């Protein structure tokens, strides 16, 4: 394959990978504070997609938006996604996980709860908004922005990558530099000590869910912009992002970013070389291989103490 083909695939991979990275953050943050595989995070992602659609449907974008209008619409969609994503994540924690934490349930119980919540949520969304794929209302003209080595990059792709990078920087900053972040890190390292030191664990956990939910929600909106929004849209990207979080070292924020990007690129090349049918096989093959040699992921598992 020629160099420009490689660039084509690479661009697709990076776009996909940055979405995975953002979703994976949600898994990793929650894992960090609760050691819980939040299987239902994929539904948070899905909710974000619907959040975007809802926000944009309410405000009905003009058919031929100006540049400023376009920017506003995008912002609106992002807000909608973030809001609904954060809300669902918050509700999930309050309604399903907190009662379990109160009674010191085992991890398997958490996992099954998460699975149940996932079933419930995506079917509920299907019932609410119809079980059909729906496109994101048009916010801008999706034209080519620039070329890298003969590969064109369009607005959506640029938007996804820029938004993802901004979010990743924000999360990294929040976790490592703010008071909220130090609470998250404290709980991740030793909840008991943290609570003795006066950290309100419930609050930290809640905020962690919301932070992860906002990320997932925006990712859902971006994903919907690129493709479509549907009630079942969460499952596969969710699983892949989950794999990405594990690949990078679950509980490790930068690991999740790295893992997401890696799996996105791997997926793009798998599709290119083996066909779309094998899309998810490559990612899992890479995951299994990496875990065989580094059983705790590329960067190892820890929150806060990023490599």
């Amino acid at each position, binding site marked *: 394959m020629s160099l420009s083909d490689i660039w084509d695939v690479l661009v697709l991979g990076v776009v996909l990978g940055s979405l995975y990275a953002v979703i994976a953050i949600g898994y990793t943050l929650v894992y960090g*504070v*609760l*050691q*819980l*595989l939040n*299987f239902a995070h994929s539904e948070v992602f899905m909710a974000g997609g619907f959040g975007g659609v*809802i926000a944009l*449907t309410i405000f009905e974008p003009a058919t031929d938006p100006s540049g400023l209008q376009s920017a506003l619409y995008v912002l609106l969609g992002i807000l909608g996604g973030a809001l609904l994503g954060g809300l669902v994540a918050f509700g999930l924690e309050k309604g*399903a996980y907190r*009662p*379990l*934490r109160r*009674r*010191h*349930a*085992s*991890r*398997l*119980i*958490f*996992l*099954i*709860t998460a*699975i*149940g*919540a*996932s*079933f419930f*949520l995506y*079917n*509920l969304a*299907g*019932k*609410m*908004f*119809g*079980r059909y794929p729906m496109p994101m209302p048009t916010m801008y003209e999706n034209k080519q922005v620039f070329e890298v080595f003969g590969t064109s990059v369009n607005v959506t792709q640029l938007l996804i990558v820029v938004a993802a990078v901004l979010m990743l920087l924000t999360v990294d900053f929040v976790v490592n530099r703010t008071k909220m972040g130090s609470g998250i890190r404290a*709980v991740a390292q030793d*909840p*008991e000590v*943290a*609570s003795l030191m006066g*950290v*309100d*664990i419930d609050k930290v956990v809640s905020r962690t869910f919301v932070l992860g939910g906002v990320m997932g929600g925006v990712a859902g909106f971006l994903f919907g912009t690129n493709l479509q929004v549907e009630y079942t849209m969460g499952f596969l990207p969710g*699983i892949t992002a*989950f*794999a990405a979080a*594990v690949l990078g070292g*679950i509980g490790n924020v930068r690991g999740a970013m790295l893992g997401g990007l890696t799996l996105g690129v791997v997926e793009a090349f798998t599709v290119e070389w083996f066909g779309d*049918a094998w899309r*998810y*096989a490559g990612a*899992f*093959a890479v*995951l*299994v291989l990496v*875990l*065989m040699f580094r*059983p705790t992921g590329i960067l190892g598992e820890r929150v806060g103490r990023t490599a």
Partner: protein
Amino acid sequence: MTAGVTAPKVPSAAKLRKRSWYQQPRWHRLFALVVTALVLAQVTGAQGTRGDLFAALEENFSGGAVWGWLGLAVAIWLVREFAHELLGRYTSRVKEEAGRPAERPGDLTPSGGFSPAAAPVWLPALLARTVRFVTDVVRGQRLYRWGSMAALLGLLIVLPLMVSTFWQQVMVDQIGMFVLVAIGLNVVVGWAGMLDLGFIAFFAIGAYSSAFWTGGLPVEPPVELNNFLVIPIAVLTCLVAGVLLGAPTLRLRGDYLAIVTLGFHEIVYLTAKNWTEFTGGSRGAPQLDRFSVDLGFWSYEWELDPRPYYWLQLAFVVVVLLLFVRLEHSRVGRAWTAIREDEVAAAATGVDTVRFKLLAFAIGASTSGIAGVIYASKLGFINPEMFVLLLSVLALSYVVFGGMGSIPGVLIGTAVLVWLPEYLRDTVDPQDRYMYLGGLLVVMMIYRPQGLLPSRRRQRELRMAEEGSGSADALGARPGGAQA
């Protein structure tokens, strides 16, 4: 239990702040109930329509139903907040009365005699005590164990004669199949304490083995075999697959193992779907042999009628169960429990942890393989969509729902959870079935995490975990920061 004078807990530093009215727990509870009511209004309401995003929302939140739900929520809240004390006093009196032991029938007389005024207290208590007394007497009988088993088996044998063809099909295609799968998965998850999210992969391998050896795939097998002969081969294939998957991954901790098994499933599924020359691709194997026996003097063929399949399946389940019950109460079962409880101590005691985990993987996988063979031959066709990832996830929830580690629990749990969506098919909008299933799982895990019929060992583990000693599974530390 006087609700008024609960001793205040020592407040943590963070909680010393003064609370406003809306931070009071009772308003929290009202809020939670209202939200639940709104969700329920949507859950039981109308379906969304294509093209109009808000159609369902508008319909569900404008009609009378939503007010009904809200009214119910408020009513529950009022009872909870204001009649709570009264209710608590009443239930504690009933509980106290019901707790009195009864050795002879004469002991059943209520403590205060049969006074009509106190009837609300002693009547329910008397009922509970009588039931307990009778079951104790019955259970005391030597015959009870075998008698009840035989009765249950008898019932299971005649059950398909009493239900419609539709339910016969469900019993065979779904319940029977998943019961076998769940029994296998229980070995891995319930006994050995490993998290397997890709168990249906072995089921698929069993089904495809069956298709291959009976000549149903595009590739010709070396010899075409009868389905009964395929079973040992499928068991062996799954065993090897189990060991191949297990050997490199068993040193991974719980969560990592989960994602790797999930990946394994996905790879098996994609292979079935895409390796068209061997597996027939997404078309699968459209025409498969059914079970048949030909002993020369007697021959029989299982055909379209689901009942003979049911009995065949039942026979397999009974045999597998008899074998596994022995295993559970043997050195192998004890070693699994030891590994699940404390892997380090088990290894220090000389338990070869890797070998026993592999054994669990292999045994579980081979059970699933048997189910695969029966499944393929019963339906007469297979395709990759019958083995999607969702089923692996569901299988795990069947095991936990029933009470992992407990064979009766796993049987009942699987039967209930497989039966429910089929039952709901006629009761609610069929599209919503899995929403109810999901909701049920969440509610169940919150209020009865040990499952429907938990095993005694498992119950102890959960109790110890709640008291804060030991973790309830081999998956490492507990979530939520409680220290093991």
